[in-house]
């Protein structure tokens, strides 16, 4: 009798272990929170010492995707002083501190390049094999369109390419958002950076090489 009960317990346990894989639920995106939080103190009164880094955080965050790419310090520095100038012309010194504080911020944000994205998409279990293949085909098609565009063809304009890129990103995100939220949020935060790589002919040529 004891043996039977032991067998039954074993069976129940083994069947219990065979549930569907639960979705890889991970904490919701954290990359967006600093951006939403920082603009609030920007409008409040002076306190220059503490406030200026926060405004510096908020504005370069929008440009950060393109910043760590290859070597665009000129672009980033050009954009960051321009914005404080419109907001308040009284603080030239804080821009210098802003420049020093931005690199760690950009490093902290989880951004992916194309290789990283490819690797993460290969690894994820949120998408099935055939879907991955199909997505890869669509990525290849899009890259082919970019090649056409840069070869001098007028047919896929940059606007059309952007639309195709956004649609493809939406497809990827819709496939990932329920089962691999971390990857979905990483892709979301890298979206503009990847577009920056594709939209720049020199960077695109470097990618193809």
């Amino acid at each position, binding site marked *: 009798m004891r043996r039977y009960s032991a*067998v039954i317990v074993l069976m129940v346990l083994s*069947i219990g272990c065979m549930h569907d894989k639960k979705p890889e639920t991970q904490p919701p995106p954290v990359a967006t929170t600093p951006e939403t939080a920082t603009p609030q103190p920007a409008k409040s009164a002076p306190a220059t010492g503490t406030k200026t880094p926060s405004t510096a955080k908020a504005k370069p965050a929008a440009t950060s995707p393109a910043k760590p790419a290859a070597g665009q310090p000129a672009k980033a520095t050009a954009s960051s002083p321009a914005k404080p100038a419109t907001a308040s012309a009284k603080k030239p010194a804080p821009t210098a501190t802003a420049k020093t504080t931005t690199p760690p911020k950009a490093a902290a944000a989880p951004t992916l390049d194309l290789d990283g994205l490819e690797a993460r998409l290969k690894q994820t279990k949120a998408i099935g094999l055939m879907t991955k293949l199909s997505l890869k*085909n669509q990525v290849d098609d899009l890259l082919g369109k970019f090649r056409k565009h840069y070869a001098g063809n007028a047919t896929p304009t940059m606007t059309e390419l952007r639309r195709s890129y956004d649609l493809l990103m939406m497809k990827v995100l819709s496939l990932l958002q329920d089962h691999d939220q971390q990857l979905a949020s990483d892709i979301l935060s890298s979206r503009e950076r990847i577009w920056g790589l594709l939209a720049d002919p020199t960077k695109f040529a470097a990618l193809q090489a």
Partner: protein
Amino acid sequence: MTKRLAYSLLVMACLATPIVAQQDEAALKKDLTAVIALQGKPCGEVVSVTVLKQNDYGATCKDGNKYHVYENAQGRVIVDKQ
């Protein structure tokens, strides 16, 4: 004692196999549903799948559409309506 243990293990294996197979089939249906949707073909949801070869399937959708989903020699996923 060992015989009984072996017997119980066999029973467990027999019970477990269909569950694993069901899970695999559910994942495959979901995968093919996503593939068909990615190609912009009407389907809704894949309700039954026939494995023809490796990466070669016959899929029947909830709305009655049937598709042949396969990977061709060039590595492209093709969805043909049947």
